[in-house]
């Protein structure tokens, strides 16, 4: 009986403290592609302005980000794709642009792919590396292609579908992983795998491919030569609280943009201008 009362009391206390918190922190939720960059921004913000409210960064995915702003669960949403029609009520700000890199294992000799081949691989028409890499050209590399994709609804998947697949479906035999990190790990471990992740997250363990002869470099993305570029958006709803506005200003300001640039995202040019995101 006593235990029960104590439990009840502690519940009430925690409920109270939770209720009073929102005014002292800002919740940012959404795309797992934007999340690591947002965490860096939040850290730097806390370091530079310790007196300002703490920024609480959560994942969940682009759609969940938009939904939680619409429902008021988060102050700021992160999206790694354009706004969907039902999300038009939100105010969007392009904080940077990001390229999607198509990655393979470093043991794979292949260097580039055409968009047409990429589409054929991901829709399951080309199933063996031998069909792509001529025998003897760079050693004999063959074997069943292990397609690694993201789950339905992910911002990265949405952008990939839109830019590459042109209405075709990703093969049902693909491996579906639920984050950029797990796609990268899978490709880093498996010589037969091919996947796609945010360019900013590519490291030594995976090899990014040139698409239609264009390497995924920052310069090529800026000049518009590299095709797989998408916006990183932050969204808010209606009138924003002054402390939220301050954080957005910090992201769009020199310090914030410099952090994003140093982490491999594309800033400046159209990327940094505030704009109401338009539908296609």
């Amino acid at each position: 009986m006593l235990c029960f009362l104590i439990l009840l009391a502690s519940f009430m206390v925690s409920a109270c403290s939770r209720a009073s918190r929102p005014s002292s922190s800002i919740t940012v939720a959404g795309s797992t592609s934007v999340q690591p960059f947002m965490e860096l921004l939040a850290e730097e913000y806390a370091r530079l302005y310790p007196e300002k409210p703490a920024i609480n960064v959560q994942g969940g995915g682009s759609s969940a980000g938009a939904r939680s702003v619409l429902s008021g669960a988060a102050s700021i949403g992160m999206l790694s794709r354009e706004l969907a029609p039902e999300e038009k009520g939100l105010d969007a700000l392009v904080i940077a642009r990001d390229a999607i890199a198509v990655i393979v294992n470093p043991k794979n000799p292949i260097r580039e792919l055409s968009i047409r081949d990429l589409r054929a691989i991901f829709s399951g028409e080309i199933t063996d590396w031998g069909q792509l890499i001529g025998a003897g050209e760079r050693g004999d590399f063959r074997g069943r292609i292990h397609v690694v994709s993201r789950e339905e609804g992910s911002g990265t998947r949405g952008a990939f579908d839109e830019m590459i697949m042109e209405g075709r479906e990703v093969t049902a035999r693909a491996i579906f992983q639920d984050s950029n990190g797990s796609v990268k790990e899978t490709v880093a471990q498996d010589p037969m795998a091919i996947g796609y992740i945010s360019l900013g997250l590519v490291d030594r363990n995976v090899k990014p491919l040139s698409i239609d002869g264009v390497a995924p470099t920052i310069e090529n993305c800026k000049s518009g030569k590299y095709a797989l570029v998408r916006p990183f958006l932050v969204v808010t709803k209606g009138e924003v609280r002054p402390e939220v506005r301050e954080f957005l200003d910090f992201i769009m300001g020199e310090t914030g943009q410099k952090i994003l640039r140093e982490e491999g995202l594309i800033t400046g040019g159209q990327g940094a201008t505030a704009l109401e995101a338009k539908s296609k």
Partner: protein
Amino acid sequence: MKRSQNERVAELTLSLVALGSLGILTLITVFIFKEGLPALKEIGLWEFIGGTRWVPSKKIFGIFPMLVGSFMVTGGALAIGIPLGLGCAVYLSEFSSPGVARLLKSMIELLAGIPSVVFGFIGLTVVVPFIRTYFGGPGFSVLASSIVLGLMILPTMVSVSYDALRAVPESYRDGMMAVGATRWQAVRMVILPSARSGILAAAILATGRAMGETMAVIMVAGNATAVPESLLDPVRTLTSNIALEMGYSAGIHRQALFATGIVLFFLVTVLNLIAHAAVRGGSGR
């Protein structure tokens, strides 16, 4: 006077708590059905359960591959977990000294306390690469999920069937010894058959655990939406389908995930009914 008053307060509170848990169960059930039924109505029950394609972006919702996936993975887990678990329980109950049994049993029960994400992580870093290297395929597969789940159901399997074996009266063992049987003969001919219903209950509890597990399976199964053609192909289960896409879904996609929950709900209910019937039927004889 005071004592009886206290008594009444305690009784009332406890019965409220008990009713509360029933209420929560009802609410969950009502909620799942309320969210999921519109999708079932729109898609059609047969197209939903029998459909082989799952393409939410094109409003195609067929969970047949996930149904098959759940059964394959659960079957594989039982094929690994039941012999291991039962063997372990028989050893602990019939062959080992009581001290060793106590030690081993508590260690196996510790297994139950390991979070499933840790099992998944071990699967991802050990089992998946092992299968990829020695058996071929991408490693994320029915086999990998079965191995990981097989280990996860061990604690349930061992402790429930151990209790069933210990519940066999000592006189049965004495009787067998008296007629000159070896320990193994006693186990095979008398003890296992007597503990049959308890062992069956253990297996069914383990089945429920395997079917409901989500996190560890997402990490090692590969989550492909096609019906796997071999044990080395990636697979998606009903639970991982819900967990993978729930965060992103909206509209009918979200309802279809709840409808997946309804199907899972039925499967688990049927399983529980079978378990009850098995235990009752077994002890009746």
